[in-house]
């Protein structure tokens, strides 16, 4: 690996990211998958970094899932997106940051389409007007929330309590970064670092002291693939793709996986259990899996938040091995206590994969 070669490519794919005043849009599914992630984003950006992060309860889905599952036509998606932009315009913002990668891709795709086909944009404006009497300005800047964390990575590093360094050996932790497919594969210039060697997560890992693993199937999809998971008949195909990634990263012995997409951490996490059930194989050390994190969770750990406040107990694969390596203090007994400190009961543990 020639690191300078990558740096050259990274320098070719940089994007302008304004430092403040963002209109924040949540993902449809992240709340359910890893509920603390989005809350941690607002927590870090507002309270730790002191940024203006506007949110409105009136925003809806962007239509991306339905669009990628081939259930609604493009014009419908565009009109939904137009309404989101109208909400932003009404709130007086011009920097738009979605939390979801598919949304980000969806917005990027729609903005590019409108740039190529202005008549389509005009028709969508008309649709929106007819539907809900709203008007919109296109966002001046579009960034994914991971772009923002990337942008503020050094500020986070300055406030860091724990780094991505193995406390016992002093070696950097070996991190697999997994980028959502819709982040830059469609429009490489919309992503930090481009599509082939994205830097958005790698940059965070490097800033926070870790080492990025470049394994052969790095570019491969997590396996979610919308239809592949949602239609049960295809689910074997979904898990097979995830399996392929794990087989490829296995020889590198990663300490953790960091992701920036709603589906990826979920499937990389949950499918490890399914793979272990079906093949008996686990990919971490001593029967554990490889812990999977969202970038907000990892940022939260770096900043010293309590793992259980970050919702890490909701992970299928046990995160404790990584916490131990990083030296994060946690109370094992508190893992399954609710916010009100009531015992939520320890879930049933699988036999095939160790989950603490």
């Amino acid at each position, binding site marked *: *690996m*020639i690191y300078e070669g*990558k740096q*050259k490519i990274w320098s070719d794919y940089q994007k302008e990211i304004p430092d403040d005043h963002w209109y924040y849009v949540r993902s449809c599914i992240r709340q359910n998958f890893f509920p603390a992630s989005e809350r941690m984003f607002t927590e870090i950006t507002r309270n730790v970094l002191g940024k203006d992060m506007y949110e409105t309860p009136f925003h809806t889905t962007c239509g991306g899932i339905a669009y990628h599952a081939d259930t609604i036509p493009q014009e419908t998606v565009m009109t939904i997106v137009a309404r989101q932009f109208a909400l932003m315009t009404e709130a007086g913002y011009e920097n738009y940051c979605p939390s979801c990668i598919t949304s980000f891709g969806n917005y990027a795709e729609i903005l590019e389409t409108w740039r190529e086909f202005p008549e389509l944009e005009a028709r969508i404006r008309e649709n929106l007007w007819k539907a809900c009497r709203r008007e919109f300005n296109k966002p001046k800047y579009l960034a994914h929330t991971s772009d923002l964390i990337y942008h503020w990575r050094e500020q986070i590093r300055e406030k860091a309590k724990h780094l991505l360094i193995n406390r016992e050996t002093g070696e950097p932790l070996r991190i697999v970064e997994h980028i959502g497919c819709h982040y830059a594969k469609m429009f490489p210039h919309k992503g930090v670092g481009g*599509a082939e060697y994205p830097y958005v997560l790698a940059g965070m890992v490097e800033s926070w002291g870790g080492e990025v693993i*470049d*394994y052969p199937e*790095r*570019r491969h999809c997590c396996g979610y693939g919308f239809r592949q998971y949602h239609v049960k008949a295809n689910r074997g195909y979904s898990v097979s793709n995830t399996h392929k990634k794990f087989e490829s990263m296995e020889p590198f012995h990663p300490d953790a996986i960091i992701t920036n997409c709603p589906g990826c951490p979920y499937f990389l996490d949950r499918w490890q259990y399914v793979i272990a059930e079906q093949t008996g194989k686990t990919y971490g050390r001593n029967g554990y899996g490889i812990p999977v994190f969202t970038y907000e969770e990892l940022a939260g750990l770096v900043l010293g938040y309590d793992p259980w406040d970050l919702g890490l107990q909701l992970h299928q694969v046990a995160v404790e091995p990584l916490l131990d390596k990083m030296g994060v203090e946690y109370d094992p007994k508190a893992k399954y206590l609710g916010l009100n400190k009531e015992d939520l009961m320890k879930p049933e543990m699988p036999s095939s994969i160790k989950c603490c």
Partner: protein
Amino acid sequence: MKENVVIIGGGVAGMEAAKQLLTLGYNPVIVERSAQLGGHVAGWHKLFPDMSSAQELVKGLRRDIAEANVFLETRLNSLQRTKSVYTVELNNGVRLTSRAVLIASGFELFDASKKEEYGYGVYDHVITNADLEAWMNGREDNRIPAQPQSIGFVHCVGSRDLKAGNSQCSKVCCTTAIKQAIELKERFPEAEVYCFYMDLRLFGKKYEDFYINAQRDFGVHFIRGRVSEVGETIDGRLQIKAEDTLLGKPLKVQLDLLVLMSGMVCNPIAKQLADKIRLQIDSDGFLKSRDNIAAIGESNQPGIFYAGACTGTKTVPETLAEARAAALSIHTYLMNQ
């Protein structure tokens, strides 16, 4: 006093034209940007189909044009036409006038690092066809392992690729890949060599024999399918993915060396010249000839002639033939003025 003919570019096209112009009684003046004559060919090792030495070819041409005026490491500051005379100003302060100018600016190799998925400049063992020629000419290259077990060639890197901005076939890469595959097989008989191609275009004299030799005598494997991406394994080997389009199945293989067959793109200098004197650019990005059949060596401007790869991808013999033809065209043009 012999009449000047300015030749832009000191590759084999420019040299061959200069040689012919000397014979015809002119004073050719070669303006070459680099420090030596011979262009790309000077960097090659062996030329197909007879594995003749590229160095010998260039050496011979250099000998033949010893009497010509050559400006090395020189660029054009300006090129202007007044009536039927062109005035050329060089960056070393020299001013030349000439009734005919031959553009032999040739091609530039496609920058393989633009195909990011192949990891040229990122992975340790990815090289280009030009790197391999240089290595065979004796240049050290630590990207080439001492004992590779498996070697891959990717044809059409930056050719026939609209995404890379080049729709044209670079014509020589198929044969070059086969030539280089044979040369590597000769050096590393134990290695498995795979050529990943989209189409094999072995159009020239004895090129097909090359193909059969590579298969029969050297056991080179040909796989129809373009490599889609390259990754690095834990032990630093390359893992490539492609589709075997004849079987319709995805395929992967681990390699110790990957050679990218960078295609030809028009030398940007040609485009700068085109802007200066309003020459036309053809749809393939190369200079547009007055007629692609009958007058490939002539431009739309009187007194401006073309030779070689500035008008499209060419083999060396084609380039030399065009250079000879251009010299004669210039002679006829000057005689008739």
